[in-house]
């Protein structure tokens, strides 16, 4: 088990290296970043000077290894647009992105579970049909569109919800200001609600369909048939046997969902003015802020890899037949 984790961590290093190399090459292939850091009236000499100052005149491999070397020492370099260490800029926004992702993850799990189980136990009924149709529709709406619709309906027409904005919860929590985090909590939830829904409706739909099939599959198994034959109540059958065994495939997929949700946040952060990493990195790419893009990609991919690792560990934990090596 320990060797497995150590191996996975080593693998993480390989992955992060690969990710940085890919990012580094693509951002430089996209043209000389210097043009973003000179005035549109700059002369050729001024551009050359700026290129030298920014270090873009060095051979690419030198620039890349320089970045890696500094990264290993914990120095990500200054963001070209923010002019402060890129690491700080990304970490400032990370809590907001985590709020959205974790919130979306919890919501998609908590809501999908009862829907999936209910639909499975009432298979073929009106309730099943309605729920699954709803799930299909939920899977057919782009996140940005859903977000705008929520704003329009709950924010503008009904005025029940704030249109956009953010109240910090995780940030004070991480910084040890627990009372502040708790004071902010009601407000934080209020502002989180609509973005969280927008980011997770697709996952809710997907998960509830998945849970329904998983439960149905288990209900067909011999041991459930036996349990029923023994005369156990339907409730006991469901709780003891069906759901518990259905959990294994469900949990794996749910854990992978976390990574999937991170994908949706760039769009949803834009719609709701959410101060997260997604929007930051989008702007950084369009401004060719090389250090900021690289740092954000390293940290995000680290988060991805961690989520995947947790998924694998949970898989092994839930299903003793699987040995992690």
């Amino acid at each position: 088990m320990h060797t497995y984790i150590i191996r996975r961590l080593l693998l993480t290093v390989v992955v992060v290296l690969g990710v940085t190399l890919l990012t580094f090459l693509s951002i430089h292939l996209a043209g000389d970043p210097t043009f973003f850091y000179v005035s549109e009236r700059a002369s050729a000499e001024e551009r050359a000077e700026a290129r030298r100052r920014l270090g873009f005149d060095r051979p690419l491999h030198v620039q890349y290894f320089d970045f890696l070397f500094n990264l290993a020492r914990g120095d990500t370099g200054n963001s070209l647009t923010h002019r402060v260490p890129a690491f700080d800029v990304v970490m400032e926004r990370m809590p907001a992105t985590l709020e959205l992702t974790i919130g979306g993850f919890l919501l998609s799990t908590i809501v999908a579970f009862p829907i999936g189980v209910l639909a499975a136990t009432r298979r073929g009924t009106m309730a099943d049909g309605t729920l699954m149709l709803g799930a299909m529709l939920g899977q057919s709406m782009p996140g940005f569109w859903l977000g705008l619709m929520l704003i329009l309906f709950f924010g503008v027409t009904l005025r029940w919800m704030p249109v956009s904005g953010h109240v910090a919860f995780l940030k004070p929590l991480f910084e040890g200001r627990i009372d502040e985090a708790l004071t902010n909590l009601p407000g934080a939830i209020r502002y989180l609600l609509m973005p969280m829904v927008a980011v997770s409706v697709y996952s809710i739909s997907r998960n509830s369909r998945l849970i329904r099939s998983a439960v149905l599959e288990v209900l067909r198994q011999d041991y459930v048939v036996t349990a029923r034959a023994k005369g156990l109540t339907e409730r006991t059958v469901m709780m003891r046997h069906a759901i518990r065994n259905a959990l294994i495939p469900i949990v794996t997929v749910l854990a992978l969902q976390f990574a999937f949700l991170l994908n949706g946040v760039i769009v949803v952060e834009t719609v709701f003015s959410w101060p997260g990493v997604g929007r930051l990195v989008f702007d950084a790419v369009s401004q060719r802020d090389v250090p900021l893009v690289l740092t954000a990609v390293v940290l995000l991919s680290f988060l991805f890899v961690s989520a995947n690792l947790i998924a694998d560990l949970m898989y092994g934990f839930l299903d003793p037949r699987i040995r992690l090596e």
Partner: protein
Amino acid sequence: MSATQEPNPAMSESRISAIDRQIDEMYAPQTFWQRATSSMVRARYPVVAIIFLTLIALCAILAPQLAPKDPNRIEIFDTLKPPLSYDRDGELEYILGTDSTGRDVLSRVVYGARISFFVGLAAVGLGGGVGTILGLTAGYLGGRVDDLIMRLADIQLAYPFILFAIMILTILGEGVLNLVLVLGVGQWVTYARIARAETLVQREREFVEAVRALGATEWRIMFRTILPNILTPLIVIASFNVAGVILSEASLSFLGLGVPESVPTWGAMLANSRNQLLSGSWWLAVFPGLAIMFTVVSLNILGDWLRDFLDPRLRGSGQGL
């Protein structure tokens, strides 16, 4: 029928042959297509989905014939006409209205089918093809090749897809083929992982051993013997992924990345409609939105059915959802 048994005289010849026919029909191996059709008809919804998708496919193929107007023709004096707009002579001119530059919404929706379908199929074809080959190779050859391909997959998995898409589209610029490339590359890993897992199972099976013993080349074993046996789960996933690609295209359009302005797509139409939304030009969003919704729902229904029909094993495994 044993020779010692007399035929029942009470049963006429014709009656017997009729029963024989019935028995034949029940037990004779039906063709694949017969089974598929009857399974589909029993499930009902897939039939509706197929009909709808066929209609969309027809739209895509016959767009130039079906669209009443040039989808890119800007009529600057006819901007934001509501649906069922008549021209000065009282002729029905814009059935589904016009957009903020006076382009005909109906024509754009019809042409949009073309791009959405093309992008969906091509991206899935590309990602599925590359992923399957890599997964097959990794699973079959194992060792260093396997390690290399799977590490590549890990890197790809660790790269948030949308970020990857932004990076690549920034470099390549906008264009239908670039979009196909990005969306295709974005999903090869799914196919590679499944193809590899399936190959690992198939590789050890007796018939593969048999083919190998007969002296078949490695290539032949991989592509002629194993590949056909691992296709089922891949096809199921592909049907879901086409729907996913159509949605991804919409999200990229929202961020201002994707296809050129002159190429009408449902996603871009939906994304562009947001500036008119508060002003009540509902038709700009509703028609492309419905097109996306019906197509995606149809593809999902079809995917569900394919999974149940082709490979009930997959039910509940989470694959393809």
